């Protein structure tokens, strides 16, 4: 019987350590499927961050590096400069990319580094137990802003996609979400286009994926997806912010 849906060869099949309902698993699957469908798994080298996805090197079915916190774009640059014809990607959380690793991501984009960045924004530090992240929403509680984020103290959440899209070297930047099946399908298309951008050597590509953190948001998985829709998307609007002049794989 024809298969409609089955686990992708892009993942090793090792069970995820993620919390119940955490959409890291969904995003891993999308990246694995795209790499499999582009038939580049044997050519791919990924760089895992420090954060909940620190164990991503166990899940992606390709050569992987485990970077120091925030340094994945620099590490990926080193790999790409040595192996320019390989498909090189980083998979990073918001603490990794938007906090300690801001310089690395800004300059990777600045150089137009031909890598693809999967940036998972769940508005909190997950692995370390729920601290405030640069993307934590105003008023959102976290263990290091227990009364809710107060912009007078710690400023406003960073919109990394908009920031990076202003950089000349950024060829493809899109923000997507995985809070329901329709958006998951769009997220996959964006991830595919980002990797196509890299394959055509158009320059730096990044997909920001709004994701959840049921455990540290203190909600059920289903409530957390609702929270993305009601609270995150208004502040982090979905959509493409820049794409290469010659469209990559646009099967719109």
């Amino acid at each position: 019987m024809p298969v409609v849906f089955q686990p992708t060869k892009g993942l090793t099949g090792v069970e995820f350590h993620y919390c119940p309902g955490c959409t890291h698993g969904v995003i891993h699957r999308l990246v694995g499927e795209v790499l499999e469908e582009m038939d580049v798994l044997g050519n791919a080298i990924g760089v895992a961050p420090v954060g909940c996805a620190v164990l991503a090197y166990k899940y992606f079915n390709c050569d992987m590096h485990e970077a120091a916190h925030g340094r994945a774009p620099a590490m990926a640059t080193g790999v790409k400069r040595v192996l320019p014809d390989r498909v090189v990607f980083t998979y990073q959380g918001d603490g990794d990319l938007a906090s300690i690793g801001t310089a690395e991501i800004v300059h990777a984009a600045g150089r137009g580094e031909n890598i693809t960045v999967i940036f998972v924004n769940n508005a909190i530090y997950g692995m370390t137990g729920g601290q405030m992240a640069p993307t934590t929403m105003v008023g959102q509680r976290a263990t290091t802003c227990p009364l809710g984020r107060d912009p007078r103290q710690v400023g406003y959440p960073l919109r990394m996609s908009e920031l990076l899209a202003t950089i000349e070297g950024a060829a493809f930047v899109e923000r997507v979400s995985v809070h329901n099946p329709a958006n998951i399908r769009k997220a996959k298309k964006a991830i595919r286009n980002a990797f196509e951008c890299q394959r055509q050597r158009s320059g730096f590509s990044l997909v920001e994926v709004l994701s959840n953190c049921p455990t540290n948001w203190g909600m059920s998985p289903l409530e957390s997806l609702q929270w993305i829709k009601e609270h995150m998307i208004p502040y982090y609007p979905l959509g493409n912010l820049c794409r290469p002049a010659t469209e990559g794989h646009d099967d719109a």
Partner: protein
Amino acid sequence: MARARGTVSFETDRCKGCELCTAVCPVDIVVIDRKSINRKGYNPATVTDMQKCIACANCAMVCPDLVIRVERVA
């Protein structure tokens, strides 16, 4: 065209009972099986009335743990 029909299978011991799949089935047949517990100690997801399945794969689409496999019935 006759309505597509499908079958859904679960790798029950991978399931963490997160319920995401139960909220996206257009024919409401995906539920949490409160009567059984898997190796991880969760109540796993299951399908009540397979006949109604239209093989849309929404459930598999949202599953964060690769538990669900969907096949179309000819």
